[in-house]
């Protein structure tokens, strides 16, 4: 049973976790050396321009599509579309967690108020059902 499932390889989808692009998805397009890769989420899709980045700043995901080293933008785009990796990521539990974190961060005061009311309602129901027992 292989221990590692996620590899640094061309076509691998990764999440950037540090720097000005933190929180954005990108695809590894080429490997420079043991510590750095060239990364591209085509800029208009994920907002990441093609550039070199240390692997330290990436979190690899489960998703990849078969790609050659130094994959060009056109082929990269086609690969992403055909594999649907971006959508697959956002529908995975990791992606969903990120989305809820973002939603919470961008809540307005009114939304926070609504959440507070909903939580109160829920706890009232819980207490009521416990009291019945």
């Amino acid at each position, binding site marked *: 049973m292989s*221990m590692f499932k996620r590899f*640094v390889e061309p076509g691998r989808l990764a999440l950037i976790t540090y720097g000005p692009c933190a929180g954005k998805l990108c695809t590894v397009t080429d490997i420079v050396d043991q510590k750095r890769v060239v990364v591209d989420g085509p800029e208009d899709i994920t*907002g990441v321009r093609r550039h070199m980045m240390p692997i330290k700043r990436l979190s690899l995901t489960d998703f990849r599509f078969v790609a050659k080293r130094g994959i060009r933008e056109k082929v990269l785009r086609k690969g992403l579309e055909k594999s649907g990796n971006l959508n697959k990521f956002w529908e995975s539990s990791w992606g969903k967690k990120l989305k809820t974190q973002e939603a919470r961060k961008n809540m307005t005061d009114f939304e926070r108020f609504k959440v507070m009311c909903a939580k109160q309602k829920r706890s009232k129901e819980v207490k009521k059902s416990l009291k019945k027992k």
Partner: protein
Amino acid sequence: MVKGKFSIDPSLEAKMHQYQIVGRAAPTNKNPTPKIYRMRIFARNVVLAKSRFWYFMKRLNKAKKSGGELLSVNELHDTSPTKVKNYGIWLRYDSRTNTHNMYKEYRNVNINGAVGQLYQEMAGRHRADPGSIQIIHATTVPDDKCRRDHVLEMHGDRLKFPVVRKIPHAVKKLRTTFKAKRASTFVR
């Protein structure tokens, strides 16, 4: 999908720059039209580049900055800044006792980055100051001409490797002194 304006992290940019400097010595009675020389200089900025130009001119061509003329100073940029290349750099450096020639190879995306790596490595491995390093030649090397193992092992179509030990690297805002859970260095 968070989208915004892309900005490259300044800490990821190469600190060295490549300049093309063209200049000549002062015209004298003996030599009214001195030869014009062009050099490719790697330096952190234009000021250092010009200084280095005259350093070489004095040693090689008997041309001093006093009276000498700089005809042009241009920064040279890489034609393919996102394509990974192998860089071979021939250099000459002064150690504490002697002076040596060296050939080093680096993998990088632009030559500025490779030369930056060179200076860092020379400082780390050989305690060589940048002032005692002279870059004789720096160029891209095709895959089959590379000689160094650490560069050769990055060649090949089917190269892939797992992240064996990942040191957690959090955004500065999320860093805290204390954490509830121990960090895990395992990446699936």
